[in-house]
């Protein structure tokens, strides 16, 4: 009964999510404003006269002029990618604020991903190692416990409850309630 109900809840949630998302994906996305497009293009280009600032963020004169060029080109109907390529053709790759995904610069993108995968793989093997060698270990641990006889266990228990009760008035209260 309870399982049936939770199944229904899951189904309902999936249905609602599916409906909203298909609605979102099927309707056309709202148009970006020109300012936003200029910002988007500008943030992918490096301001060449600045120290580590993008064309979008820099107050330098060159950056202002470049923003004007970007705006002009976007207004004339070019796509964002076209404008970036226009600057890339003029200035070379050094105008890009992130390494291009080709040639030597591809390394910049691949190495972190490769290291992450290697880390995950290493983790997988280490954990599998631990896992297989722990079969014996778990039994060992249980037998540790059985080595303690009942009376001693009872003493530990009482000590533990006492300490817990000292620690936390709520625990003390609940033990008293139980005793009473």
């Amino acid at each position, binding site marked *: 009964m309870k399982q049936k109900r939770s199944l229904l809840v899951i189904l309902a949630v999936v249905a609602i999510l599916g409906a*909203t998302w298909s609605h979102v994906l099927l309707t056309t996305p709202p148009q970006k404003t020109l300012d936003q497009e200029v910002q988007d293009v500008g943030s992918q280009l490096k301001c060449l006269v600045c120290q580590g600032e993008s064309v979008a963020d820099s107050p330098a004169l060159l950056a202002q002029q470049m923003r004007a060029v970007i705006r002009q080109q976007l207004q004339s109907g070019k796509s964002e990618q076209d404008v970036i390529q226009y600057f890339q053709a003029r200035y070379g790759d*050094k105008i890009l*604020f992130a390494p291009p995904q080709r040639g*030597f610069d591809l390394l*910049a993108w691949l190495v972190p991903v490769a290291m992450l995968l290697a880390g995950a793989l290493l*983790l997988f093997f280490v954990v599998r190692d631990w896992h297989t060698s722990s079969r014996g270990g*778990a039994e060992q641990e249980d037998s540790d416990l059985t080595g303690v006889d009942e009376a001693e266990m009872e003493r530990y228990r009482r000590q533990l409850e006492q300490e*817990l009760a000292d620690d*936390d008035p709520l625990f003390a209260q609940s033990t008293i309630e139980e005793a009473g």
Partner: protein
Amino acid sequence: MHFSDLGSISLILALGFAILTMVVAVLGATRNIPQLVASARRCVLVVAFFLVLASASLIASFLTHDFGLTYVAQHSSLSMPWYYTTAAFYGGQEGSLLYWAMMLSVFSVIFVFTSRRAPAMLVPYVTATLMGIEAFFLLMLTTISSPFVRLPVPLPDGVGLNPLLMDPGMLIHPPTLLMGYMSFSLPFAFAVAAMITGKLDSDWLRSIRRWTLAAWSIQTAGLVLGAWWAYHVLGWGGYWGWDPVENAALFPWLTSTAFLHSAMVQERRGMLKVWNLGLVIASFALSIFGTFEVRSGLISSVHSFAYSAIGGYFLGFLCIVVVFSTGLFIYRLPRLRPEHEFESVVSREGSFLLNNLLLVGITFATLWGTLFPLISQALSRQTQTVGPPFYNSVDGPLFIALVLAMGIGPLLAWRRTSTRTLWRNIGIPALAAAACAAILPLAGIRDIWPNIAFAVCAFTAGAILYEIWRGVRVRHSHGEPYPLAIYMLIHRYRQRYGGYIVHLGLVMLAVGVIGSHFFQAQASATLRPGQEIDIAGYKLVYFGNIAQQYPNVVVETAQLQVWSDGQLQEYIYPGREFYANYSNQPSSLIPITTFGLTDLYVFLDNWNGPAQATFDVFVNPLVPLVWYGALLMLLGGITCWWPEKRRRRIDRSLSPEDIPVTVGARAELSREDTLVVAGRASVIQGTGTQAVAGLTSQAEESDSEVRDLPIGEEGAIT
């Protein structure tokens, strides 16, 4: 006789005493002479005394405007108010090194006074390591980078501080961040001491974790203050630019965060010892690397520091640190066997491993991006810039995965979790995420990435709040009113619930970052009086410019009206300030008006006469959450760190080897609703048991699984 002479003498004496302390402490430990160790501890006080004296004399030189001192003449002027004059103390390289060294000596003193709590065996080596680091800084302060160099002829007035630094942020951000960098020395010193003595037990772990927690909290504060400052003065509408200098501050923060989590695995399960030592060493090495990177000018950055030969010395020091600790590490490797075995990936340990993988992955990716310009320069002869677009697309998804792991972690039990429990626990957070994913697209958020990111945040926030709610409900059902129940829950199990507060803060911060990253609106326009800018429901009407002349500064401001919902909200005055000696580097006055959770950020870009101005206007949604979240994180960090009352003292002289019986992690009490786990030390009739006891209550927890056990903390134990 000038104050600066006193300063130079103090520095030399401090160097002498630092070296003396090192030698005496090591001798005392190896020859086993307690008097020598005690004397080393007192020497630390002497070093601190001389460093405080040196700092005080530098500040006195500033306040008395002793322009015969090069450092004072370069970083202050007569017209500066006293508080910026005092803050100019750490405004340059020499002063910030002195500040670093002074804070290290102060922290060493705190360590000496609290060292009763630390394992006695470690104390001399910790002291020696700290003083070794101190000696390196003092060596530089007395030789190549002394703040007490005098000019042959005193100047009539100084150059003054860079106007960008004349901001309230200057008073708090640099000292906090420098202190953060410095404070990673303490965990490192503990790691070195443990590797030398081979004592890596739970006492050691407790000490090192407390110091790391302190360092982490300070570094968090430093990072956030830096972001806040950048947001308020730089004028590009953002607070984090993935600049090499910012990244440098992030590295030790990331690795120490990883350590704080994996240390819990070591505490509870005795695993990951090697890994944890590595993280502690890495945190310190990265904080030295950061200083090196910043000071050497190796990588071009927005932050302009005075570059000097000092970078080379830091590189040398970094090499010594790495070689020395790697050597020790390899020497100790045989001792570092795990005590327990891993049982299941679906467990709390498993989630901590994932957390560590992600944090170290982010560290590596960011480090790689920061160094890539150098690598590409060396190998392909072309310097390729690596800017925010790279970090956003590489680190962004990793951070989201981290937030997700943060939500899943607390739902899992230690050792292993049954599928049934997992599903039961995951229900509510999953519903929260689903609700978020269903509502936000309808509310107009069409992009896929922010939707995923917000849903993940909702999941994690749901998981944490549900977890806190369950604890509170249990206490409430035993008769405590809700506010008291919340207080008692956090008070009793500080580490656990402090951690949750940090996590909630981070989720809040993440929501702020996602909001401002994806939904920032920007407009720029050149206006004449009466013209207006419309942006994202706000209207700005321009009136004209006002120029004000002060003795040492010219201020140009523009006057604007802010309208929203057809109502005049207020007048704002974005502007620029031109200081006499820095007329080509104007600082900015940026009004940031907060409407609910949205910031309206106006930057005066350019102007022409009294009646024309160019503005950059940004509407930054959710940015205030970044600051609130950070505050919550700090609050959580302090909650975790706050010492507990020491109620009971149990003989510590018993080493674990003396304890014949160890009741394992699974002592289960007869009461159905009470579970007990290991870790608490108590002595019963000469027999030691180790057990941490915790109480979870509710009958629904009775599937005999060890989960959800609030940890009895150190204060309660000892």
